[in-house]
């Protein structure tokens, strides 16, 4: 893993700025679930998106693959620049050329992503046909090749099998294979190892890194597990209550510049001595729809002052060395 702080290589592959996402609720005001997200993903970068459940990270993922409407959600404002498009304002027709083709997606549940009545080969060939860059290689040969890429042994046997015949780890490999089949530029992986065993999780993470290196694509890895992010990513984006509150290189994050990140780091079990009292974050994240004025972490923060509870949520601001923090008092952290 590289040691130096990583400035974002210009131009970034993905540039999300001022993103606000709401959920429609009939005649009432839309419920804001993301307010606001700002981050970049450089070409060939693996970026981690971390936050508690309900912090809005899955909604941000959905905005990157254009499936917000399926959850009754929509983009209220902001931009998502991707390869010359503003994904925040394109229509469903335009999405069809991007979703699953230029931007791949891996979900949490390794079974939900596969069709139970289709063989692995049929599913992979369907994914390969999404590849817009016409390729001379037959889709049958590429299907087998893809299983090699995701390190599945005896691919000729697996190609003829159905999802239920595979283990959870194998299914997740097949999902990854079909996600990368159309040679996307970006892979969005939303908690890809939740529910998998630790040894399988380690293998999948290693695989994601290998694929990134071989294919040169960018990966957005969503997780609530900082330890996992630590191992795999170069850059981290931390979300709390619908807002991006800190971005930094993964090594820089060992010295957090937002009290929420600092609290997350201190509550890490694997870094604590056995039996030593663990630091916990008081209270719970403010519920969507009842966000207070000012910083939404203020009520859980022991550094909060009166200016933290005024106006809008503080925006993410550059604080040097390529990192940003939304804390008004970040310089008071060690």
């Amino acid at each position, binding site marked *: 893993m590289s040691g130096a702080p990583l400035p974002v290589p210009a131009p970034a592959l993905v540039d999300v700025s001022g993103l606000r996402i709401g959920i429609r609720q009939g005649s009432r005001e839309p419920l804001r679930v993301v307010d606001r997200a700002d981050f970049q993903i450089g070409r060939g970068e693996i970026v981690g998106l971390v936050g*508690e459940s309900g912090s809005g990270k899955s909604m941000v993922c959905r905005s990157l693959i254009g499936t917000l409407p399926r959850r009754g959600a929509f983009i209220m404002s902001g931009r998502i620049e991707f390869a010359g498009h503003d994904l925040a304002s394109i229509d469903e027709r335009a999405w069809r050329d991007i979703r699953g083709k230029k931007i791949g997606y891996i979900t949490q549940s390794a079974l939900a992503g596969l069709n139970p009545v289709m063989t692995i080969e049929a599913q992979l060939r369907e994914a390969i046909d999404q590849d817009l860059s016409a390729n001379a290689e037959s889709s049958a040969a590429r299907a087998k090749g893809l299983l090699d890429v995701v390190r599945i042994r005896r691919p000729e046997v697996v190609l003829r099998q159905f999802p239920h015949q595979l283990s959870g780890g194998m299914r997740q490999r097949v999902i990854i294979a079909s996600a990368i089949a159309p040679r996307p530029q970006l892979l969005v992986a939303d908690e890809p190892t939740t529910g998998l065993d630790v040894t399988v999780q380690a293998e999948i993470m290693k695989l994601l890194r290998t694929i990134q290196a071989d294919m040169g694509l960018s990966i957005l890895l969503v997780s609530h597990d900082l330890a996992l992010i630590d191992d795999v990513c170069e850059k981290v984006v931390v979300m709390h209550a619908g807002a991006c509150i800190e971005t930094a290189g993964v090594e820089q994050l060992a010295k957090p510049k937002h009290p929420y990140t600092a609290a997350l780091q201190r509550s890490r*079990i*694997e870094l604590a001595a056995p039996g030593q009292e663990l630091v916990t974050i008081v209270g719970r994240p403010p519920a969507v729809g009842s966000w207070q004025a000012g910083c939404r972490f203020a009520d859980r923060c022991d550094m909060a002052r009166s200016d933290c509870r005024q106006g809008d949520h503080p925006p993410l601001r550059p604080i040097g060395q390529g990192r940003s923090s939304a804390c008004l008092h970040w310089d008071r952290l060690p």
Partner: protein
Amino acid sequence: MSNAEDHLMVADGLGVSFGSGRNRFAAVKGVSLFLGQGEAIGIVGESGSGKSTLARVLVGLQKPDTGSVTFKGRSVFDGSQPYPGDLRRQVQMVFQDPYTSLNPRLSALGTVAEAWRVHHRCSMADAREEAFRVLESMGVARHDALKKPRQLSGGQRQRVSVARSLSAEPSVLVADEPTSAIDQSAQAQLLNLFNRLLGEGLSIILISHDLAVIRYIARRTYVMREGEFVEGGETEQVFSNPRHEYTRALIASIPGRKRHGAG
């Protein structure tokens, strides 16, 4: 190690099989363990290793085909019912998913009060007072105690679930993957709670696939694979000097250890 009669709980040669004929499947094979008073032991293994079946045997929900469990010197499975008489309430279980194991129509208070009433045969009014006390000692405030499971966070639900188990005033808590459905900060809260309970003399059997959690809480650790214990001993020994290949693979898979060099 001390003598078997000093231990609170001793399991010897446990075996459990499911199905019959060609479909017979041995989920637990010849497993033995012991647990001391105020001690925490960890059982680590991956899905399908048999650790949940073992947990069910230890709390008396599943009768083993072979082997025995002795609790406070008395045999658990000899009578018509496991855990005869007053031993019954002394071994309690905490399940993985607090959402499905809590009654959706009862408030946190109602859940704990009901358990308290059953175990202590007192009036509901007294049970509610005790329930408030137990919940408060677990960091569930009075106004949250009146909420239904769906209105609580995952971490709060798990603490309610522990409170329900504790209302039996058990000597042993068997916790099956209690941290796997909750956020990191809630995990930390639950583990702090377990530590406090250990200090108060409770014994805990923690079953998990998460080695970081096991290492943090358990004095001794057993590594389970395909129904068998492949390794067992003092936790620090198991982690710093794993003898079995499978244990080594598990330890190498713990995320977040590379950079910080924990351990």
